[in-house]
Each structure stands twice: as C-alpha cells, then as structure tokens.
C-alpha cells in the first residue's frame, strides 16, 4: 500500500488525507503548528451562506479520526529521492519514506506593516481583516482600542495585493467578498454605525456573491466608494483621519473613522519557498508553487509524485480549496494505477 505524505494540515491537507485514506492509501499529515485546520481556525462564519467555520473543521476532523497519522509541530528539513521514493527528514529527527507527496502548505496573510502609509502597528485603531475576524468570535459589539463603541468603520480593499510596490501583483481573490461579509457582521453588532468600503474593483465572481453585495447595500446601508487610501494620520482622540480619492466623482475625499480595517491579501506560507526548493519544483514570479499546467494537470508539479493542492498554488476560496484537494487525491490515485 503506497504511503503518502500530506505536508500542511489545513483544510486542503485534511480533505486530501481523508480522500486518500478512503482510497486505501496510508497517509501521514505533517503540520508545523500544534493544531489542524490552518487559517480556517481563525474564521468565524464563511461566505456565502454564513455557515460556521468551526463546523467545517469539526466535520473534517471527524472523518480523519483513526484513519490518518497526524504529526503536529513538525516540519520537513531535508529530502532525498531514492528508487522512486521520497525520504523526508523531519524536524523531530525522524526519517520517513513515502511514495508520493501532496503539498498543502496554504497561505499566510500579508504583514500589513509593510504598507507603512496605512499606519498598521503604529496606530492602535488600525487592524487587519484577520484580527477583525477574531473579534467576531464573540457576538459583542466591536470596540476601538480605547474601548469606545466603533461608530464609523472603514474597510480598505487590496492591501498587499495588486501592488507592484509590495511585489504582489496578483489578486488575492477572496478579500472583496470577505470585506462585504465582514461589513455586514459589523453592521449586525454595531447597529446604527456607518460603514464604508473603499475598493479598486469589486470582485464578486462566484455564486451568491453579488447577492451579498446587494444585501450589504440594501439591508445594512453599507457605503461603497471606489477609491484608494493614500495616508492615515491620527487625531488627538486616537480616531483616524483618512486621505483618499473618490475616483468616480474625481475629487479628494477625507473622513474621520473610529476603526480602520485593512483587507490583507494572501502570500505563500513562510515555509513554501523552502519546500519548493527541497523538492526542486518551480515557483511562479508571484512565489506560489507552479502546477504543471493550469488546465488538465493543476495538481501535478514538474516532479512526478509530487502534487500540490489548495492555496499553496494560488489564492482560492474555501470551496475551491476543498475541490482542489479532492482533485489532488484523485491525481495521486491515478499516479499509482495508471503507471
């Protein structure tokens, strides 16, 4: 029975491992943190249907139980290839041999302090969408850093994405719809608050996304302004003074807000480039792992026996990630049965 290593224990890794073990492979999940679930652990509810993220993770964990070897707090430090097998040297000192690898290392959020002009980590009322999502875990109203009720909140799209200055030209795909979702969640918790979304484009590409946009406008009165944020400064009461342009009207725009939320994009996980190096597989100019091609072989890499799934090969929504993970599992099956 071939043994498969799934590197990365997020939802892509978990789904791939479940499907592979259902196909009677022996599977090991190698996860660098001390819990499974990856980034989805930090989400509250998912678009477009507001289903709880916790539920998704628990469902996956249940299906994994007793079927898969899970190695937490472990990383791959060296690889060898011998006789069509991959020998992985792990950070706990062990050596394990596998017949195929599935890389599901996912993503990390863009570190927003790299965009200095937005004042992240300088002004306490500037937070990222990831931090806002953490605050949603309780149903309480959203407060500012100095414990006031946030009555005016601004969301900025495309922070760390679509930005050649940062070095990330790509679009992170899901932040637009996340912003709309989060805006509605804030509106539910802080009734009567004014919420603004400042965007370059609104990428509502999937089913029901436009419905969310519609709902945000009509049910919650959320205001959408096409324009970029250029500078943030702090007033004496720790409220933030924003400088933008309203591009549709063609005029500069100024606004004082209680809270500024930066929609940070996705970047490849920290260990992704090192892993690509260990397996000698290429990454694109956007630093995500390059699949063999973008159509028929999206899960294969240039190395036979090494597959990739989930956000490790580019930003994806949760539904797309799970579908990708299943597809990778099937590719692994084909690899051993059509050889």
């Amino acid at each position, binding site marked *: 029975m071939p043994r498969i290593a799934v590197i990365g224990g997020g939802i892509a890794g978990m789904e791939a491992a479940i499907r592979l073990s259902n196909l009677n492979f022996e599977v090991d999940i190698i996860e660098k943190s001390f819990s499974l679930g990856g980034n989805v652990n930090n989400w509250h509810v998912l678009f477009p249907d507001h289903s709880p993220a916790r539920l998704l993770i628990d469902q996956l964990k249940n299906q994994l139980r007793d079927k898969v070897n899970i190695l937490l707090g472990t990383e791959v430090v060296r690889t060898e290839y011998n006789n069509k097998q991959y020998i992985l040297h792990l950070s706990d000192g062990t050596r394990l041999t596998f017949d195929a690898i599935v890389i599901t290392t996912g993503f990390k959020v863009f570190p927003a302090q790299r965009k200095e*002009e937005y004042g992240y980590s300088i002004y306490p009322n500037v937070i990222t969408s990831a931090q806002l999502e953490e605050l949603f875990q309780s149903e309480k109203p959203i407060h500012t850093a100095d414990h006031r009720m946030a009555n005016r909140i601004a969301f900025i799209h*495309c922070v760390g994405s*679509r*930005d*050649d*200055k*940062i070095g990330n030209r790509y679009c992170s795909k899901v932040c637009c719809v996340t912003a709309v979702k989060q805006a509605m969640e804030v509106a539910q918790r802080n009734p009567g608050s004014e919420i603004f979304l400042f965007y*370059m484009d609104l990428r509502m590409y999937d089913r029901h996304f436009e419905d969310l946009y519609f709902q945000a406008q009509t049910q919650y009165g959320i205001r959408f302004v*096409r*324009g*970029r*944020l*250029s*500078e943030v400064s702090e007033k004496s009461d720790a409220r933030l003074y924003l*400088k*933008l*342009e309203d*591009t549709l009207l*063609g*005029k*500069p*725009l100024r606004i004082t807000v209680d809270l500024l939320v930066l929609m940070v994009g996705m970047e490849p996980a920290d260990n992704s480039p090192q892993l690509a190096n260990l397996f000698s597989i290429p990454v694109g100019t956007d630093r995500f792992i390059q699949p063999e091609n973008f159509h028929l072989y999206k899960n294969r890499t240039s190395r036979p026996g090494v597959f990739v799934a989930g956000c490790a090969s580019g930003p994806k929504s949760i539904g797309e990630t799970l579908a990708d993970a299943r597809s990778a599992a099937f590719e692994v099956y084909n690899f051993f049965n059509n050889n």
Partner: protein
Amino acid sequence: MPSFGFSVQPPQHIDLDKNYRAIFDFIKENEPSFLRCIYCGSCGATCSAGNFSQMSLRKVNLLISRGQISEVKNLIDNCLLCGKCQLVCPRNVNTRKVILLIHKALKMPLS
C-alpha cells in the same frame, strides 16, 4: 424660412472613433509604463496639489486616454512634481516623467 431660435449643440459624448491619440502615443513612446495605469486613484488620493485644485494624475491620464485634451492643461499646471504619486502607484508607473512629458507634449504642435 422661419428662424426657430435653436442653435446646434456640439456633441457631448466621447467619440472613440475620433479619439485624439497624438499625445497618448507620444507619452506611450517615451515612457511605456504609462500603459500600465489602471486608474485606481492612489495617485490622486495622495496628491499634494489635490488639496487646492482639481488636480489628480488619474484624471489627467484618463482624459488623455480618451482624447479629451482641453481639460488636461488646467489640471496639470497645478502639479508640484513632489513625487508622492510615484511612491504610491501600485503599477509602478513612472509618474513624474509622464507629467513632464505631458507638459512637453502640450507645447509641441502635434497633429
């Protein structure tokens, strides 16, 4: 013949068939990064001259792209060349050079 008292109004639409491309082409040849602009407005948001005038490089680039040159001159004359737009452009357009080229183009007798 009765005189109706109406005058002929000039067309108010942008006519891309008659699009005046001379200045656009001149800038494109001398600074190809001009083509990358997505009119996101980061430049206009940070513009120092935007405080006291209608100036926004996004607006200027858009007008040139659509061939609406007559409004460009009034806007571009407000530019202080401070360079903040170049520091924030997410597409790395060489904005200061584009502005100086626009000034040059406006003085040239381009057909």
